[in-house]
């Protein structure tokens, strides 16, 4: 089992979600987040003065995935979230020790 945390462009969320659903992965948590990286924000002009937006809006997808589909899931996120420009985001992958479904008490891959 792995845990995927993908930080992507907000506009790509729909496409990523639909592609994951097509793989049979329908469980995820999505949050609006702000961050900065190599993109270093963006400069907007207002009243002729420049002001910097240092943290860019992104969307974070968190999901636990069984080993069987892990590689596929990661590939599909990278494919669908890619625009090729700076600011596309990152995918963080960690090994997951355990998962517990609160309602039933099930553990491990069946609980995902």
């Amino acid at each position, binding site marked *: 089992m792995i845990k995927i945390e993908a930080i992507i462009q*907000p506009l790509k*969320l729909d496409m990523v979600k639909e592609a994951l659903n097509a793989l049979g992965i329908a469980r995820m948590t999505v949050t609006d987040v702000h961050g900065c990286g190599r993109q270093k924000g963006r400069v907007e002009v207002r009243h002729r003065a420049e002001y910097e937006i240092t943290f860019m809006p992104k969307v974070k997808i968190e999901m636990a995935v069984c080993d069987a589909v892990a590689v596929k899931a990661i590939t599909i996120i990278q494919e669908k979230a890619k625009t090729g420009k700076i600011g596309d985001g990152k995918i963080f992958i960690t090994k997951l020790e355990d998962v517990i479904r609160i309602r039933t008490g099930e553990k491990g891959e069946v609980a995902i």
Partner: protein
Amino acid sequence: MNSSIITIIWMLICAFLVIFMQTGFAMTETGFTRAKNAGHTMAMNMMVFVIGVLGYWICGYALQIGTKGLFLSGVDSDTSIIILFLSQVVYMNIAATIPTGAMAERWTFKSFVVYGFFIAMFVYPLYASWVWSGGWLSQLGRNFGLGHGVLDYAGSSVVHMVGGIAGLAGAIVLGPRIGKYRANGTPVAIPGHHIPMAIVGCLILFFGWFGYNAGPALADGGLRVGVIVVNTMLAGVAAAVAAMCYMWFMYGKPDLSMIANGLLGGLVAISASCAFVSPVGAVMIGLVAGVLCCASVFFVERKLKVDDPVGAVSVHGTCGAWGMIALGLFADGTYGDGLNNVSGTVKGLFYGNASQIAAQSIGVVVDIGFVFVVMYAFFKVLDRIIPMRVSEEVEFEGLDQSEVAVNAYPDFSITKTRR
């Protein structure tokens, strides 16, 4: 005080009330659109007023009333003409504002500015002159025996249908917002971001409508103002109740946003006939308008597949057309002697006169045909010169920053994605 001063004061009060309706439009439209486009929607509603008044001053007014009034030069000593400008320009602004709702959330500001001048200088004044300033539609009665010619007391067709049909043409040229229709063509609901704002706007419009409908009441010498305001009130509330019941029976819940649209639809429908019908007639007109408004919203969305974010085409176009026809049905023969140079009072089909409804129908057909053809052609040509639609990135990001250099809510995290 003599009666002419009272008339002037009354016209001024009503004109100021109609100016306040601009606030109502701005709030209703902005409330029904998404947070990322709130600044842009507000900007359109504010600037259409500013641009419209100037355009109407340049040549719109002159085109409407005939020979006088280009740049209002040479008429400044003539009080009646100069006051008439004020009371007419506010009506024009209502018409010019309506398409900003139907075309919200995807319209470039550059092309919008050109549109503002075009409708205020040419399209609205032409149709208004045909109906209100002794033009050929108003003379159908005298020349061809069709009732009293096309009658439109406060502007169901002159103001609301012109706006609604122009909005329809614009929304067709722009195309639906990204994410409005699924690949298989079924519509997706895109909820507005601030329903309390939209409802306050709707109530402001309701309030302003009493000035809107009652404005001409003293100008033409008759004391019909009591009938007019009561009919306005009754048609509005009847339409809201009808919309509530329709949504409750058809979709299980009394949808608040549709009730608001229904209320406005009833007010649009009664505008043409408010001086001519009985209170019972006003309630009937309102009830039909409420149902018609809801049905039309779904028809435009599902059958025509035209994306109208706030329902402007249905509220103003469909209900405006109904209001015109309704005058030809419900006019009860207590008012209108001598209007458009035809003697006798105005009677509708239910009171034994079939010729008035014929004139009203011609008015509706001409309005739809003229405004749609002219505005569709205008938008198509304009699109070639100044692209009407914003780029895909801007539409995802929201139009606020790139089109009008403000974010409506900079301190809040705004959802940019479709959820």
